[in-house]
Structures are given as structure tokens and as C-alpha cells.
């Protein structure tokens, strides 16, 4: 069995960033699963929990909001291969602004922003298939 540790590290990073408890990836016969259970309840009086200190993972995510795919389809960052991408990391976006296209049944469905913020991350590669609910962008609301 050959392990790709770098891939695993990337997945762990994703787990942290997204503040998930579990990631499972299945491709054909391969499967990777990562899990982090929430820390158990603290003993109340002995070790007083500090409510001012949030968990490391969630701290990183403060302010992050995800744009998810409303369709199954293929994700495109631009109207055509010759056009520029609708948005790039760091761009400020406004409600109604087109972020990407999800193509389904030859229809180009434009996905618009619903909030104001900044593109913190683009989570899917151009031209890749996406399922319903897949995360496409992480938006930071300043």
C-alpha cells in the first residue's frame, strides 16, 4: 500500500480550515477518512474552561461563509475559455455579482453572490464536476 502523506496533510489542513469533524473521500476502491471528535467536556471545577479562548480551528474560520453549489454540474470560473475568470482570490464582491457558472444539461447557470465580502478561497478547480451542496468559494465578511 502506497501512502501519499502530502495528500493526507492537505486533507487535514482542509479539515482544520473548514472546521469539520470528518472528511471521507472515496474514489473507486480507495477510501480516505479523517476524523476529529470534538474535545470531551471539561471537568467543570477542576479545570475551569476559559470561555474567551475558542478552539484553534474555529478561530481560523471566524467570518468564513461558504458559497455552495445549488446544482449538480460542471464548475466554470469564466464564461468561456477565452474570457477572464469572474472572480479571483482577494476580490471584493457584492450581492448579485456573478461568481462562476455551473453547467448542467448544456445550460450555463450563473451563480451569484448573495452577500458582500471578499473571496478568501476558491475551492474547486475550473472544469471539475460538482455535486449539490459542494463548497465553491469561501467568502470573508470583513
Amino acid at each position: 500500500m502506497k501512502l501519499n502523506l502530502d495528500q493526507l496533510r492537505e486533507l487535514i489542513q482542509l479539515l482544520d480550515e473548514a472546521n469539520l469533524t470528518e472528511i471521507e473521500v472515496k474514489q473507486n476502491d480507495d477510501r480516505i477518512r479523517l476524523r476529529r471528535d470534538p474535545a470531551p467536556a471539561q471537568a467543570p471545577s477542576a479545570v475551569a474552561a476559559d470561555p474567551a479562548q475558542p478552539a484553534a480551528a474555529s478561530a481560523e474560520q471566524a467570518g468564513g461563509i461558504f458559497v455552495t453549489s445549488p446544482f449538480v454540474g460542471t464548475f466554470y470560473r469564466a464564461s468561456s475559455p477565452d474570457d477572464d475568470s469572474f472572480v479571483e482570490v482577494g476580490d471584493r464582491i457584492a450581492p448579485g455579482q456573478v461568481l462562476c457558472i455551473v453547467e448542467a444539461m448544456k445550460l450555463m447557470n450563473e451563480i451569484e453572490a448573495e452577500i458582500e465580502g471578499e473571496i478568501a478561497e476558491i475551492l474547486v478547480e475550473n472544469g471539475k464536476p460538482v455535486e449539490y451542496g459542494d463548497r465553491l468559494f469561501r467568502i470573508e465578511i470583513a
Partner: protein
Amino acid sequence: MFKKVLIANRGEIALRVIRSCHERGVRTVAVHSEIDTEALHTRLADEAICIGPDDPRRSYLNIPAIIAAAEITGADAVHPGYGFLSENPEFAETCAQCGLKFIGPTPEQMRHWGDKVKSRALAKSLGLPILQGTEVATNLEDAVDKAKALGFPVVLKASGGGGGRGMHVIQAEDQLRSVFQAARSEARAAFGNDELYFETLIERPRHVEFQILGDDHGNIHVLGERDCSIQRRHQKIIEEAPSIALSDELRSDMTSTIRRAMKETGYVSAGTLEFLMDEQGNLTFLEMNPRIQVEHPVTELVMGIDLVAEQIRIAEGLPIELPAPNLAPRGHAIECRINAEDPDTFAPSPGKITEFHMAGGTGVRVDSGVYGGWRVPPNYDPLVAKLIVHGPTRAHATAKMRRSLAETIIGGIRTNIPLHRRILAHPAFEEGRISTCFLDEFSP
């Protein structure tokens, strides 16, 4: 041969299709709603695509999402299962337009048989015995006239209905006057079609249906009948094959009649012709279901065939492949539909399955889309498992079903297993004195 089939369904029938595909060496794509992420069909398919939220209108009935899932996975065919989009001609057409083979009959066939008034006329023209009935009633007064002419009691039926939906038994004129408008609105809301017509009421009928298979090479096979008389509010709960109510002569006559009729329409794929049988043994056409049915396994067991594998072969353009040219039923099979519902109130009982132990051993088949530890979602059909048995005679099969029900343990949710046990233990069932009124008459 197909390389990859997308199954546009969930639950036991999705599993059923996945199994026949895998046995054929065909890869499978499951589509699922968000709540079905851990469902068995999602877990056992080669690939799984989330197509929408829990609400079936936005997932399992969402044509663009399903077609898109087929496109991104490179599937070359779609099996619709039963329910959901299985009888939707637009879905079949869309599949064809997108270069996906729809595993089922043509959209035209679906349209012919889908409208109950048209299907009655078609059946009549094909020489199938039909029940006395009327044309569509244009308004209330016309309805009263038509019902009187037919003679009360009558059954008021919606053109767009079927499978027991959109039906009202009307005993007399004043009852008709009080329900007609409501039935019309109901039909419009449920089927998008407010046409209503009347048929004669058959008292204490049996439900008898014939399984057919047709292929592109002009072959039509009538694969015996099923008796699905044990129903609750027109929903089948126990089915068996063959029906003890048919004489060999009647079976043989019906087989020829149906075969000729289906050859005439050029029917392709699996389908079922449903009939009601009156107490004198006369059969009259009820409806034709152009799809695989829930109760198909009882036919598979007595005939020794795999109907879903045949559907796939037929869609691939191959001829039907039967183990023998003139198949006769071998032994007797019974199916119990195990639903997640209260056995007395019939209220749905979704929730986490804490224990799941199905019967096993000789002559026992289990088709189920659930597993221990999984949570039955509240959004869909309550069917959690089909328990199907096969024995040399009806008495053997009945005894086998009793012991199988006795050893089946499903914990965490309520199921209708206690009701099945009571029915199977009832002398009227044992003696085969069954009709669609069984549950009302015997309240087992």
C-alpha cells in the same frame, strides 16, 4: 453493453438495480439527496452524486439535476426504478435528448398507458376485457346522469390517477353530489388533470396482475400472474405468485390475449397489466404499469428469472433471455412489504434502526435498502424491506413466511411486522379466501 448506469431512485429498488448491474459487470452511479448521504444505495454504488436537498421534488424528482449527474459521471443509461420519475414521459424524453438510454418503455407507451381514460380505450381496442364504465363526465349533472345510467354503486375515478390513487366508491346520487367538486379539485391538484369518469364497482375483488417483457426484436413474454389482493387503502402489502384463483385454462387464455395485445402495441421493456377479478372469476382490465413493480420478486422466484437484468438487456438492444421457452411457475412465492409504520395506526415511524436482523435460510430472499445504525428518513416511502419466500406449495410458502416473520427483528422503529404476522396466521389467508377487502372484513 452499457458501461455505466445511473439509478434515478433510492431505497431497496436502487439496490436491486445496482445488484443486477454489478452482476453484469456494469458500473453504477447512485444519486442521492442530502439526507441519503449514508443510505445503502449511496454506499454500495461505484459512484454517488448528491443531487439536492431532502425534499424529493428538489432531488429525486429533479430532472435537470439527475441528467447533470449522468453527464458529469459519464453514465450511458438511466434506470428509473419505480415511483419518482419512472412513469414520467418527459424524463424519458430528456434522457434520450441528452444521449442517455432510458431503461424502460418509450415515452409514447408511457403516455398511452398513463392516462386512465385513454388506457381503458386502448385496452378495449386491443381486446382486453374491460370493466363497464363511462366517458369523462363534463359537469356534475352529466356525472349524475352517467352514474345513474351505469347504476350505483360506482367507482369515481380520475383520468390521471392509478395505483389506487384518485378513487372514490360512490353508493348513491346524493353522495356523488356532495363529493364531485372536491374530487375534481383533488384530481387537478394531484395529477394536473381534473377529468373524472365512472366504472362499475366490483364487490370484494381480487387484484390479479400479469408480468410482461417485450424487446426490440418483437418478442413478448407473459410471465405469469401475481395476486396482490391483500391491500390497505389500495396499497398492496402482501403479494404472491401464482394466484390460486386462476384455473390453468383462464391463465392460458389470458396469457394468449395479453401476448397478442402487447405484440400489437409493440411494447418494449418490463410492464404489468393489472386486473380485478370478481367473485365469479371474471377478470377486467384495471391499468397497465409501464415499469418494474415493487412485487416483481415473487415472479422472479417462481419463474427463476431476473427481471431487472432483462430490462437492462432489452435496453441494450439484446433479445430477452429466458431459461426455457415456455416458462411455467415452479412452486409458490409470497412477499411481505415491511414498512416503517405503526402496525395499528399506520402512522409513519422514521428514525434510527437500532437492531436489524432479517430472516435467512432456504427459500428466503431479502430486498432491503436499510441497515442497522442507519436512520430511516421521514421524507420518503416507508418501505424498509421486502421479505420474500419461495416454497414448493402455497402452504409451504405460508409456513416459511410465518417462521421468517417470527425471526425478523427490527429495533428502534416501529414496523408493520405484527400486522403481517396476524394476516399470515389468519385461517382466511391460509385458505386463500382473500380480496382487496381482506383487512376490512377480518381486521386481523
